[in-house]
């Protein structure tokens, strides 16, 4: 169990780092979704299925979707200029 938690924590640390390091927002969205996924795995491992489910629904699906839409809208603005 302790190994599983340690592994999940390491993954969270690495994926968080990757989100920050991906300077191109179009790539960052996917890092963000991956970060959300890894976090929800960590939450399941930490015996918090309720939190894991919300994290999965919100930060893995919805938030990245909002990021994508924002970037798409910005790209369309750009094209219009």
């Amino acid at each position, binding site marked *: 169990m302790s190994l599983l938690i340690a592994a999940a924590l390491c993954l*969270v640390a690495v994926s*968080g780092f990757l989100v920050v390091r991906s300077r191109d927002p179009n790539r960052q969205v996917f890092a963000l979704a991956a970060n959300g996924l890894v976090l929800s795995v960590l939450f399941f491992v930490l015996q918090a*299925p309720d939190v894991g489910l919300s994290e999965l629904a919100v930060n893995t699906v919805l*938030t990245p979707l909002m*990021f994508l839409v*924002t970037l798409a809208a*910005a790209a369309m603005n750009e094209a219009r200029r």
Partner: protein
Amino acid sequence: MSVFPWLVAAWLLGIGLYGIITSRHYVHLIGCLSVLQSGTYVLLLGIGYKWGAGPPIFYDHPAGTPAVDPIVQALVLTDIVVGAAVTALLLVIALQVHKRRGSLDPQELRPLRPDN
């Protein structure tokens, strides 16, 4: 192992801050803010975790089996909602800024300074 989760939480806070400070794109900056926030999730859930305990849900096992702290989990649930709410607002603001200025570089966008 006993301090590792706290270090991960601190790492997420720190790396998120580093991202915010150095960011050159509003949307990237918002992503960094959510990394910063995930540090608080890890901290809170880590505080409630107990070795060998199950989830605080007594559906499959009877009430009284060791379970982790449900309070911090409720706190993190609120935290997630707050995070989503703030992220949505920030993205909207970024979008509208882009419509008006055609740029999302924080170094170029400064309130009340129209000439840059």
